[in-house]
């Protein structure tokens, strides 16, 4: 009754059941789709390479900027976002200067949530390497009076020497900010600098203070020494305070009123970390030029895949004819070649993600940054390769499906 030796449920060939093309399982589709790739590994590597380069570029661009941003945020975390600074506001009347009250540091320190407060006061004096340098060559260095608590409030550290204390704060001793020390050419404590009209001894040099660049450019003198030796009036020009994270908002609202209850509009309160936060936000906006380059590489890679697929279809006409004679529908031939194209570009995408992540890793490790590859970039990279694979495979697949099945019978 039939060609084989196996018994088949009794139905005469003339009364066959309704014809229905069987569906291929997902595994069979994957198997058939990968057959062409497995037989030509070198071609797979070369045509997937284009996609890989494109994806790697994009992942690396996103990854490197994300790593830089993570580094900034980490810095910000270390410096804290709970530092506020109060300075005199602009006067409403021209020619009149506004001052903060002398007791401002004490009143700020009593606000609920404030952990520590400190201040600096501008001193009308200049600092020079020696008396022989003209008074107008200040090198942009300001002389400020500083409270003992200032360094702790700023979370600063002394690079060499000591910070101002009750003892040296009364004598002609000066602590230099990191930039000020560089400009004055002072590297070790004990050296002398000319302040106003006499020599002061440098007792310490500070580490960089990213949140307070104005301190980095200052020569700091003890509060009482400034008043006694430099004619300082005792009114602070900047009041710094550090509060708990939860109370920053409340403290900010109450600070001006506490410092100057009668005219709070004369007090300006700022948050030094906001500048760094803004920088972190722009750092996250990666270079769109590089990203565009990656996109072009990806596009060229897609064209390469389409090219490979067209050649693959031409080479395998007999196989297509054979499969049609074995009962493959046009749709199944299309699926086979789209799958092949998807696998080809998917392989490229996978290699690209790994390459891009590795490049980010190398950059991050060499720059001391945290290694961050955003998940959305990886997912986006994959989705775009799959999209490109489908588009690149569609035309060759449609051509393959339209081939006449009689081709297989024209002997090779």
């Amino acid at each position, binding site marked *: *009754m*039939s*060609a*084989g*030796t*196996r018994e*088949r449920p009794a139905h*005469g*060939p*003339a*009364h*066959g059941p309704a*014809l*229905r*093309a*069987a*569906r*291929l*399982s997902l*595994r*069979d589709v994957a198997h*058939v789709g990968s*057959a062409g790739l*497995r*037989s030509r590994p070198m071609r797979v590597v070369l045509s997937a390479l284009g996609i890989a380069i494109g994806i790697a570029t994009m992942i690396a661009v996103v990854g490197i900027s994300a790593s830089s941003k993570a580094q900034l945020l980490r810095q910000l975390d270390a410096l804290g976002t709970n530092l506020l600074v109060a300075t005199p506001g602009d006067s409403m009347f021209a020619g009149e200067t506004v001052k903060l009250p002398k007791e401002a540091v004490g009143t700020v320190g009593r606000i609920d949530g404030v952990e520590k407060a400190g201040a600096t006061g501008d001193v009308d004096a200049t600092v020079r390497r020696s008396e022989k340098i003209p008074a107008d060559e200040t090198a942009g260095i300001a002389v400020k009076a500083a409270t003992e608590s200032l360094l702790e409030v700023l979370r600063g550290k002394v690079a060499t020497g000591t910070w101002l204390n009750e003892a040296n704060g009364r004598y002609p001793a000066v602590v230099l900010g990191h930039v000020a020390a560089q400009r004055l050419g002072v590297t070790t404590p004990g050296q002398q600098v000319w302040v106003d009209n006499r020599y002061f001894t440098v007792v310490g040099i500070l580490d960089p203070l990213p949140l307070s660049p104005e301190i980095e450019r200052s020569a700091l003198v003890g509060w009482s020494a400034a008043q006694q030796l430099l004619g300082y009036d005792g009114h602070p020009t900047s009041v710094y305070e550090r509060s708990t994270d939860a109370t920053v908002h409340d403290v900010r609202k109450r600070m001006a009123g506490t410092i100057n209850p009668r005219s709070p509009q004369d007090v300006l309160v700022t948050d030094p970390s906001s500048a760094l936060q803004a920088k972190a936000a722009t750092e996250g906006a990666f270079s769109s030029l590089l990203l565009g380059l990656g996109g072009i590489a990806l596009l060229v890679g897609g064209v390469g895949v389409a090219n490979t697929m067209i050649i693959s279809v031409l080479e395998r006409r*007999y*196989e297509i*004819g*054979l*499969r*049609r*004679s*074995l*009962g*493959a*529908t*046009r*749709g*199944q031939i299309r699926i086979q070649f789209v799958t092949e194209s998807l696998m080809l570009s998917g392989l490229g995408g996978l290699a690209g993600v790994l390459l891009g992540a590795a490049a980010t890793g190398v950059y991050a490790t060499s720059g001391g940054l945290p290694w961050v590859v955003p998940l959305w970039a990886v997912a986006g990279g994959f989705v775009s390769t799959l999209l490109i694979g489908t588009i690149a495979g569609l035309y060759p697949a449609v051509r393959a499906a339209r081939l*006449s*099945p*009689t081709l*297989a*019978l024209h*002997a*090779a």
Partner: protein
Amino acid sequence: MSTVVALNGVTKEYPGGVRALDGVDLTVGQGELLAIVGPSGSGKSTLLHIVGTLDRPTTGSVAVAGHDIAELSDRKLSALRAQHIGFVFQAFHLVPGISAQDNVAEGLLYSGLPRSERRRLAAAALDRVGLAERTGHRPHELSGGQKQRVAIARALVGEPDLLLADEPTGALDTASGETVMKLLHDLHQDGATIAVITHDTEIAERLPRQVRMRDGQIVADTGSGAL
């Protein structure tokens, strides 16, 4: 005995006006072994394409396994080939790099059977063609005759109602050709319906029925005794 193939007034014209088939009537009953024989250009290959449902006639009706192919969509025609027709080619068309068993199992890929079942049936079909101990061999490790027997196993593994063999010995030496023809005879003894397309009259004369073709027409048909 029921009819497997019924062609009625079939013509096939190719673009450019070439008339490859010109009013062909042919009936093949179940269990027949026949030769379609003719010189090249006689239209036997076109006839094979039409009977194998790989191509449609310009005019006339074609019924295979009881299905009128004029009414069938591409999907249904593909299903017809998957379920009812097996092909054997002169050039074997085995997939290189995969084992004989996997090559035979490819014959069932579009049947809807699960993979394990396909492999099991493939092993049985290889056993049937006398290659039980060659299941793991790849095409390049087999002789020409063995390759053609693998291809025959692939064609019959789905138990088709009709086996179409296109010059099955054309690429083989005489001895290998003999084994392949003997296998076709054996399958016929077991009840298979087989049509062998050949230009070799010697091979054709050893088959129970010969259909001779020339210039797109059937010029002689020894007929099947049963019809």
